[in-house]
């Protein structure tokens, strides 16, 4: 079966699973499920870039910001455009941004690339203040997006509808990422990650492939940001600071580099560790300051603990557990890893 077909089938299965989950949960959980969705798309893009091509970006949050502000501006200034068209424009805009940044940084390796993308993460939120009238300064932009279509009245709530829209986009995006990752392009990226000289000597265009990886990751990040703006109805520069970029990268390591499943665990960690930490701070009556900062500390502690005991992240741990179970069951001494 060709890869795109297989991955579209898996995407449909994933969407059905999310729909099933939504039907048994409440409105608040629906928003969190949506948050897991768009966060997963962002992390999956980073997965392709870091795990696939071996480039480290500290500026992934900046592309989410580009997508989110694009969505807000489109809704405010082109209110007649349907959501799907908005998402299409966002992909185009973030691809363009990715080409610009990727081409500028293509010759940079390791820490230098990280440094250049760091500048992006630190600098971009400043634009919202610089162009106050257009981008709304620190208050950001507020938008109203359509809820569920009338014929679904009473069947799904607005939150559930938004979660479904988000996840439909996300599973399609993941199908594209999975197809790229499992195909020729993904193999070329991994070859570059493992050994640039040997990859070039085999005919892989190293520079171009790196830029393409960067652009694909940017598109995923931008699309994720656009979905976030659609769900939350508000975009502010403070949501896209360096902390977001670092959190995405740290969560990727926590979830496990090298697999899209890692991106799922990562996005669940980002969304739910925050929720739990906030609940904890409230329950303990720690006050506003602690309530704001506890999630970061909590996240850091979990990251350290996970990597202390599972160096390959949650997905690595699950995989070795699975391998051990299979070994016990088969009980033959065939040790060929698949």
């Amino acid at each position, binding site marked *: 079966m*060709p*890869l795109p077909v297989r991955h579209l089938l898996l995407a449909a299965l994933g969407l059905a699973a999310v729909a099933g989950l939504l039907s048994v949960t409440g409105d608040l959980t629906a928003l969190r499920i949506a948050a897991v969705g768009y966060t997963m798309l962002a992390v999956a893009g980073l997965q392709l870039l870091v795990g696939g091509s071996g480039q480290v970006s500290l500026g992934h949050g900046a592309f989410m910001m580009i997508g989110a502000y694009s969505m807000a501006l489109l809704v405010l200034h082109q209110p007649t455009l349907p959501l799907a068209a908005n998402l299409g424009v966002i992909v185009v805009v973030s691809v363009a941004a990715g080409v610009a940044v990727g081409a500028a940084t293509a010759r940079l390796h390791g820490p230098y690339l990280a440094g250049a993308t760091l500048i992006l993460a630190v600098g971009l939120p400043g634009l919202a203040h610089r162009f106050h009238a257009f981008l709304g300064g620190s208050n950001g932009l507020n938008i109203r997006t359509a809820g569920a279509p009338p014929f679904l009245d009473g069947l799904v709530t607005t939150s559930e509808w938004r979660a479904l829209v988000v996840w439909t986009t996300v599973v399609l995006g993941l199908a594209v990422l999975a197809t790229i990752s499992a*195909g*020729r392009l993904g193999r070329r990226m991994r*070859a570059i990650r493992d050994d640039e000289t040997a990859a070039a*000597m*085999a*005919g*892989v265009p190293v520079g171009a492939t790196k830029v393409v990886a960067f652009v694909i990751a940017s598109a995923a990040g931008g699309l994720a940001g656009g979905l976030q703006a659609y769900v939350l109805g508000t975009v502010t520069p403070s949501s896209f600071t360096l902390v977001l970029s670092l959190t995405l990268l740290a969560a990727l390591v926590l979830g496990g580099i090298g697999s899209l499943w890692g991106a799922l665990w990562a996005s669940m960690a980002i969304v739910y560790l925050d929720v739990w930490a906030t609940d904890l701070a409230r329950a303990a009556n720690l006050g506003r300051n602690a309530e704001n900062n506890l999630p970061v500390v909590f996240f850091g502690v979990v990251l350290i603990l996970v990597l202390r005991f599972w160096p390959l992240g949650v997905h690595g741990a699950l995989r070795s557990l699975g391998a051990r179970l299979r070994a016990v069951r088969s009980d033959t001494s065939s040790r*060929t890893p698949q």
Partner: protein
Amino acid sequence: MTTTAPEHLLTADGVTVRFGGLTALDDVGLRVDPGSVVGLIGPNGAGKTTLFNVLSGVLRPTRGAVSWKGAPPPGRRTHHLAGAGIARTFQGLNLFPMMPVLGNVMVGADRLARGGAFSLVSGLGRHHRDERELRERAMAALERFGVAEHAHRLPGTLPYGVQKQVALARACAGEPELLLLDEPASGLSGHETAELADRIRGLSQDMAVVLVEHHMDLVMDVCDRVVVLDFGRVISSGTPDEVQADPAVTRAYLGTSTGPATGPDDRNGDPR
């Protein structure tokens, strides 16, 4: 060696490479004909690897030029040469450590895939057929080198001798017209070296081979022509017999008066 007639596959003319004040190669010429096996020998530091890097496009010469089939190479970057049909192995093998053996060799075959940018990014169009063909080619290459049973292992889990065969399979999977081998016999046992000689003779049915090698028995055994470098200059070239009889060669391998056939043997198993 002054001609660039199209019957030569690869020619190097007046190649000079300077690193700061050090002249690594000085006015070196080389030609490789289709189907021939050319050996590149010389004491350590003679410039063999530097010349190799020039031929494979990893290093650009300070002066002089390399031409491919009578014309300048199709591009200045390494991957252009590979696309034109030049493959190489590395002294340190440089396998992709996190990719299974099959994936390693599929990268080597990748240049033969015919799908364009669209199929590459979308996975549509020719992609499915390309992937199947690449897998078949890679498996065929692994079988040719007798290591097909390790297709799904990671290279690091395999013995060194097997890894070397994988590296050869990766280089040959793209069906190059010229194969550059960097010390193919280093780290191999006597028995494995004899096998390698047969292997190289077999390969030269399909492609020209240039090898850098310390193992003189192998060089004299398989090469049609031998080029001897010393201090960055060509001090001798010709058939193995001619080179062995050349007094300049004997002098270059200082401390030995018996000629190159036994002189540098102690350098086998260079640290990698």
